């Protein structure tokens, strides 16, 4: 099992599209889309983020990637609700959403740990 990813976005389509793109280079990585509000409007959903973490953390940890600042705040809130046991292995990446997710997916696919996957996202440039 590899590190998982959750793509947190204000748009459901955007989150799903990023997952689709990243999955191309990381067939074995569990990547969840957490995009849009509970009723799929534009915004973020605490529930979708919590569900995404639950679905992708196989014990190796999960990295969250976010679009705008309010997605960051919702994701950080979600982290506070995690079990203390799970908390240390769930990280937020401070990275551009698309570029960071692709870099993180490749890192996870090649078996890196949660700190390395986070670092891969954070050092991703705007393009290859």
């Amino acid at each position, binding site marked *: 099992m590899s590190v998982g990813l959750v793509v947190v976005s204000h748009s459901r389509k955007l989150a799903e599209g990023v997952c689709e793109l990243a999955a191309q280079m990381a067939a074995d990585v569990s990547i969840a889309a957490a995009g849009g509000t509970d009723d799929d409007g534009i915004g973020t959903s605490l529930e979708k983020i919590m569900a995404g973490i639950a679905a992708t953390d196989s014990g190796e940890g999960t990295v969250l990637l976010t679009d705008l*600042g*309010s997605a960051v705040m919702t994701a950080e809130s979600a982290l506070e609700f995690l079990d203390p046991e799970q908390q240390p292995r769930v990280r937020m990446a401070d990275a551009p959403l698309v570029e960071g997710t692709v870099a993180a997916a490749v890192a996870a696919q090649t078996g890196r740990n949660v700190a390395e996957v986070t670092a891969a996202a954070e050092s991703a440039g705007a393009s290859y």
Partner: protein
Amino acid sequence: MELNAAWADQWMRLSAAALSENRQRLTTLDREIGDADHGENMDRGFGAVVEKLDADGVPETPGAVFKTTAMTLMSKVGGAAGPLYGTAFLRASTAAGAAPALGPAELVAVLTAARDGIVARGKAEPGDKTMIDAWTPAVDAAVTAEAAGAAPLEILTAAANAAEAGLAGTEPLVARKGRASYLGERSAGHLDPGAASTALILQAAVSAAEEAA
């Protein structure tokens, strides 16, 4: 008059009513320097809080009301205001603890915790043109009033009036946090929507206390 669970319950209901009435106004403010959804976000969030309070029945403590409010806002608001007000009410709930009612000191502790929660979540400083510019003068006024021996209703009134003044003070500011910061200098000349909703919510706390009196 006591700031008990019934007061807290009524505070949330009056907040919901005020946000619903001001939905259009808040959204118009957010259209100028944001994405035109703050009224909708707050109305949806507090509407859901009222539904949850209805479903849960009469709460036992102010802290329990704040906790329900926090969880519901976090889930339902959808915008930045969700985690911000959610964190505010979560910290308020912790500060209120199991007390059946809030005395002057507890009230100040609750308001301070709420403001600190927003700062912890959003990292805004006074002057960044955010809801913090309403919360910080509100907390300062509450602290001053409490130190001068004011009763809860007076403390709340002082806080709400200071929030209203803080809101007015956001107009000339250039946004340094939140969506409005994308506009840079062009964010000046508009009121901050989150500061406006904060002023409404703190005014609702006063009205609920007056009713309880």
